[in-house]
Structures are given as structure tokens and as C-alpha cells.
């Protein structure tokens, strides 16, 4: 498969009177990890929702060129606000999501078992979600996003609510997915963590791309945080 998995070109979106996105362009290629950064209200979640197809852009295009996967959903998505079915069992919820992603019952059950083991939740498989801690529920949702071997994985604020140990687990999962050739788009505020795994960075400010480039394009004398402060914050240090 050649070319990017997703090409976002000159995308704009207005909600009410607010221009949330203004001519945003970037690509997500196989094995790439694109970090989507920006202050609150920069338009990251709207952009993520456009990329996964939950909403459409008012202007511009989003081209998805995923490898063909018979009957399977090629996108794994972790939304910013998380809930799932609180009264349902962990394994039942994950099997339901896996089946909706196009896996057979047997494939679903096998993958769910593997992913629960990967995120250290195997002993809690038969518990109801409401019986889990917030961090454990986060990991269930993370497993749901990775289920079904999607080509593109979109994670909106994956570190929110996680302790350092579990944040480390997310970093590992992202690296493993990237090594397996998947494209990842990760929206996050934790710059130190993002710096560990991103191959490309897109900084949004007031709906526009304030800076975009490969990880190695960041000047050697600057940290990601300095770059962010310079471009995302009005009047930030240049």
C-alpha cells in the first residue's frame, strides 16, 4: 500500500458562529504516529471526529485509503469522553464491539481474551464495567479501540485519567501498533509522553495548523514543549 492512509486537505468546519477548523491539512501514513497537539478549544476533537467519519467537513476533503479488509471496520477509535455500558460485563462489551467491527464470534472472543491479557484486565473479564476503577475502564476502552486489527487507530486524549504506569502501557501499545505498520493519530496534552512516540507533530491553534512537521524537524535546541508554547499559545515565546 503506497501513500498515506488518510489525507486531510484544507478542511474547515464551523459550529454555530464559531470557525472551529480553518483549512487544516495533514496526512497519516502507515507506521506513522501523528501527534495532534493544541490548547483546549483548538479544534482537536472536531478534527478527530472528521477523520473517523463521525462528521463531515464544511470545506476541504478527507481521503481514506485503508488496505481492503473484508467486512471489517478499518478504524479503531478512542473518543475523548468515555463511558461504554456500565451495567455490562467487560468481556461482553468488548465482544460486542469486536463483532460490530466485523469479527466472527470466535474471532471476537479470542481477540478479547488476548487484549484483556495485554492490558492486564484478564482477571476482571467477567466484572461489570461499573465495578472497575476509572483507570481500568480507560484500559477497556483502549482495548476496544485496538480490537479488530484496524489499519488506522485514532486516540483522543488516551492518557486522560491514567496513572504513570498505565500511561506507559499506552505508549507501548502505540509503539507496537506503529511497528506493525498501522497509522496512528493521537490527540493529547501530555507533551512529554507524546514526544516519546510521535513521528510527526501537528500543532493546532484557534482552528489552524500553527506548526506541522516530522519529529526530527523540531530544532535541536528546542523541546516539544517550547515549540508548543511558541506556536499554540498567543504571545508565546518565539
Amino acid at each position: 500500500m503506497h501513500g498515506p492512509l488518510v489525507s486531510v486537505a484544507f478542511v474547515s468546519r464551523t459550529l454555530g458562529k464559531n470557525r472551529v477548523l480553518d483549512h487544516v491539512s495533514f496526512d497519516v501514513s502507515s507506521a506513522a504516529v501523528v501527534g495532534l497537539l493544541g490548547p483546549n478549544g483548538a479544534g482537536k476533537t472536531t478534527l478527530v471526529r472528521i477523520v473517523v467519519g463521525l462528521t463531515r467537513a464544511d470545506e476541504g476533503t478527507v481521503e481514506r485509503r485503508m488496505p481492503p479488509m473484508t467486512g471489517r471496520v478499518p478504524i479503531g477509535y478512542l473518543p475523548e469522553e468515555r463511558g461504554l455500558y456500565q451495567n455490562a460485563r467487560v468481556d461482553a462489551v468488548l465482544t460486542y464491539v469486536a463483532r460490530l467491527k466485523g469479527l466472527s464470534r470466535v474471532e471476537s472472543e479470542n481477540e478479547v481474551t488476548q487484549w484483556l491479557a495485554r492490558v492486564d484486565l484478564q482477571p476482571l473479564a467477567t466484572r461489570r464495567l461499573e465495578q472497575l476503577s476509572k483507570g481500568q475502564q480507560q484500559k477497556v476502552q483502549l482495548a476496544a479501540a485496538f480490537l479488530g486489527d484496524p489499519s488506522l487507530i485514532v486516540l483522543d486524549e488516551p492518557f486522560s485519567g491514567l496513572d504513570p504506569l498505565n500511561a506507559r502501557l499506552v505508549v507501548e501499545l502505540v509503539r507496537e501498533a506503529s511497528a506493525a505498520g498501522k497509522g496512528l493519530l493521537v490527540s493529547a496534552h501530555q507533551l512529554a509522553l507524546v514526544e516519546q512516540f510521535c513521528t510527526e507533530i501537528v500543532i493546532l491553534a484557534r482552528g489552524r495548523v500553527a506548526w506541522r512537521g516530522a519529529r526530527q524537524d523540531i530544532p535541536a535546541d528546542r523541546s516539544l514543549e517550547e515549540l508548543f508554547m511558541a506556536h499554540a499559545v498567543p504571545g508565546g515565546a518565539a
Partner: protein
Amino acid sequence: MRRLWIVAGWEFTTTVFRVSFVATALMLPLLHIGLALLLGHSLKVVTADAREKKPIAILEGTEEPRGMVMLRENRVDAVFVLEPDYVETGRLRVYTRLQTGLFQFADGQERRERAETLLRQRLLSPHLPGPLTARVVAPIENLEAFTVDRDGGIRRRDETPLALLTGAFGLTLLLSLSIFMSSGVLQQAMVAERQNRVLEVLLVCIKPFPLLAGKVIGLAGAGLIQIGIYLAFLVAGAPMALTLVDVPPATVGAAAACFGVGYVLYACLMAGTGALGRGTQESAQIATVWMVVGALPLFFIAPMTSDGTSVLARALTWFPPTAPSALLLRIGTGSVSFMELSGALALTLAAAAGALAISARLLRRVTIAGAR
């Protein structure tokens, strides 16, 4: 299509194993049967009281003191005292024991009717032969009732109007309740999924229309389970309530079709309502409007059952939101033709499909509206 059935299976299993569903499915029929038994017992007591009624006395003015003694000793229910000029003026007085209660006026009316019968006998018997007096006093004693259908066929009418009305009302109320309860579950589920953002995960995997259709099908299955439990309770545990299901198989089939179509329509409307409201309270308020509209025919039960082919009955039958309960009422009274039943149900199904399509659009729009 495969994903639609996965959603249906999920909705069905998560609903029927929910504690609230099991509690409602078991408790509501028990509650209704309890009420029916209580009502039946009350009616029995009232009937027994009526049978044990004491006589009333009709006396001349000079016999008044004797009448007062009879009343005090509880040997009579009432003493009617004729004034000296009774024949010319119709004047008389009545004495009863002091009583309180809601139905006093009905007792008074009943005593008055008994007194009138006795007075007629007393006035006529000196002048007419016995049988003629009896006929003048009670012109209708044994009435056989028949119905004539549109083709001129004549049938004996076995049901009393009250039983007919109760059967139709009971059936309509039972099925309407189930429709509203089952579709209400869908509306609540939609609100919850919107609020906890599960919808976003689902909508990445499945389009809104099959998602909603799957939910409607899954919860329809749960609704049928509920009705099944209801009927099982009725048949097994409440002989009095059997009048509700003591109907011909064709009527049961037609009622089941109305229930199915009614559920589908209201599930689609409630799904849209769940997608439209910004929270549980707002959605519940909108849902109340649908429930009032849906139950509208029950407010017109008397005119609809007395003349099932009236303009009102037909209008409510051909208006999709009121069609299910209007048809259920009219089926109970045998006033709806197969063609009208099929036509109205087809129109209601078309309205349901339209409601589902609008709900799917709303769902996508409001899910996205949360994006910032």
C-alpha cells in the same frame, strides 16, 4: 445487515437480563391481577349486598309510628309515607337510617325505583288482571339481544356491553402499556448512549439507520417477552381477567399485529426522541407528548366502542400515532374490516420507517453537535 442483527441481539440480551426489566415484567402483571381481583371482590360484595337488601315499606300517614319502629329495628331499608292527597298530587315522604358514603345518591335512586314499582302495583291491581298489572309494572323482563352485520347476518349477542367494553379497554390498555414501556426503554438507552459517548464508538462501526433498526428489533423482542409473561400470568392466575383474552383467534392475531406495528412506530419515535433531547429529563418530556397522543383513543373509548365506524373512530385509525390503540379498541368491538386494518397498519409502518430515517439523521447531527 449482519451488524444490524448484532445490535438487535445485544439490545435484546442486555434488556431482558436487566433487573429493572425482570422486576417490571413480573411485578406489573401481578399488580394488575391483584387490582382485578380486588375489583372483582368489591363487585361481588356489592352484588351480595344488593341481593340481601331489606324490603321497603309504603304506609298511609296513620301508620307512620309503626313504620318508624320497623326502620329503627332495621327490618326495612326505607319507609315511604303517603300524604292524604297522594293520588291527586303524588306527594309522599321517605324515611331512611342515617348513612354516609360516596354512593348514597345511588342507594336513594334505587329505593325510589323500588317504591315506584310497588306503588304501580298497588294502584293498578284493583283495576287490572294480575298478569296485565305485572306487565305494566315491568314491561321488559326477559330480553334476547342480537346483532345484524353489514351482510344482513344475524347473531345472538352473548357479551354484555360492559364485558365487551372491559375486554376492549383491557386489551388496548395492556398492549399500549407494553408499547410505551418497551419503547421508553429504547428512549432511555439512546439518551444514556449519547451522554456516555458510546454512540461515537458504535457510529464508527455501523451507520445510524441499521444501528437504530437493530435497537428497535432487539427491544421489540424484549417487549414480546414482556407481553408473553403478562398473558401467562393472566391465563394461569386470574380467572376473572380471562375476559381480557377470551376473544376469537382472529382477533388475537389482529391485536398482535397492531401491537407489533404500534411498537415499531413508537420505538422509532422514541429513538428519535432519545436522540433529540439534550438529557434524560428533556427526552422524557418529549416522550410524554407521544404517550398522550398514543393513548388519545382511550379518552374516546365510549364513542369509539358504541360506534366503531364513526368519523372519529376512522380518523384516529388512519392517523399513525393513534392508529395502534384505535385499532385495538375497534378490533375488540368487531367494527374494523380486514382491508381497513391492513391499510391503517401499512400506513403506520410507513410512518415508522419515516420516523426511523429522521431519527437516524437526528442521531448523527446531535452526536456531532457535541464536537468542540
